[in-house]
């Protein structure tokens, strides 16, 4: 039973293994491919990424604790017909003790030079799936909710009293992946 998310809505996840799935349809018109990316930013109590490797994205597919795994980049949306094109698998039992939150963001790669936004991408969504049952926990339809944006903070998993909760953020920006990263990462970002 899927929950279509409201901004700020909190969910008791009650799962230890889940998948964040991003899906969209390839560009069948003229112009560039739509290259959507899902990334996970793992932050500590100071709200910073403690080491480079705790930023899980297309160039770094595994967090050092083995808790977060990105299945790899899909540059066009062609990975699956109607299903998830990019996925991040999460095992909350393995998360390093110093990590307090995992943020999930979706960005359109090269959105600015390609002049793209979520409004142009067909059937794009991000969702959480219970890995045990395969059922959908919650879902955002991106094209409807974020038509002129290029970057979305999907939501965050966070620890509260020893349990993990999920809060849907649903905030869109006309920004790129570096924008999100720069909020939580003190090191150098090469664009």
């Amino acid at each position, binding site marked *: 039973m899927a929950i279509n998310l409201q901004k700020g809505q909190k969910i008791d996840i009650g799962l230890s293994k889940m998948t964040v799935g991003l899906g969209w349809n390839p560009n069948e018109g003229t112009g560039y491919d739509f290259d959507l990316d899902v990334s996970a930013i793992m932050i500590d109590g100071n709200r910073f990424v403690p080491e*480079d490797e705790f930023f899980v994205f297309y*160039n770094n597919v595994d967090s050092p604790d083995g808790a977060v795994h990105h299945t790899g*980049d899909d540059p066009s949306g062609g990975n699956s017909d109607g299903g998830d094109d990019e996925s991040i698998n999460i095992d909350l039992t393995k998360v390093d003790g110093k990590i307090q939150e995992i943020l999930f963001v979706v960005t359109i790669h090269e959105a600015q030079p390609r002049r793209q936004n979520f409004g142009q991408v067909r059937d794009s969504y991000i969702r959480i799936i219970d890995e045990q049952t395969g059922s959908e926990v919650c879902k955002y339809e991106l094209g409807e909710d974020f038509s002129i944006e290029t970057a979305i903070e999907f939501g965050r998993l966070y620890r509260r009293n020893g349990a993990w909760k999920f809060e849907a953020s649903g905030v869109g920006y006309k920004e790129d992946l570096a924008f999100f990263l720069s909020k939580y990462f003190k090191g150098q970002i*090469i664009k």
Partner: protein
Amino acid sequence: MAINLVKGQTIDLRKNDKGESFDLSSVTIGLGWDVRQSRGGGGFLGKLFGGGGEEVEYDLDAIAFLLDKNGHVANRGRTFQKPNGNKINLYEGDVVYFNSMRHPSNHIWLTGDNRTGAGAGDDEQIIVKLDALDPKYDRILFIVAIYQGQRKNQHFGMVENAFIRAVDNHGKEIAKFSLSGDATYNGMCSMKFAEVYRKDGTWKFRAIGEPFATDNFLELLKQY
């Protein structure tokens, strides 16, 4: 520490995205570039130092740092006095450069030679026998510096069509990355160009393209 958001810049050297496999017993890292003639773009100082529209000699050097698991250049070699009295530092250490072109292991060297078929178009080449490399070496960082760039007012903003590529033992190109010089490279005289590193029992190749103002690779060596 840096996170690189540039896409498609990491390649598994054993096979590429087409699933082709490569012979890594020796890999040639080739660097190439063209120089854009700055038409007085160097301003007064540029004209003074020959940075104007005339044909200018550029001397770009490729350098390799062999790093251990802690990201350090463990062996900084020795000081060596040439017969003519010139002193050379970092001789026969874990830095391969124009004054110490062959690593003591014989597994990595700088050719400076552009005449092999496999390397057509490369301006500088470093050959690495990856499979033979001592396990203590975890990463090789390739640096390009414009020799005396700061004094000559030459910088990467003037360099066009720069590329770095990896070619396998049979001359098959594994990967090639272009670095387009733009205004962000103005005034930048050296660059961390690319690296090969061990991951999950294989070697990977990553383009970096991170520029620095200094034209002296010894400044970058301080980080390692």
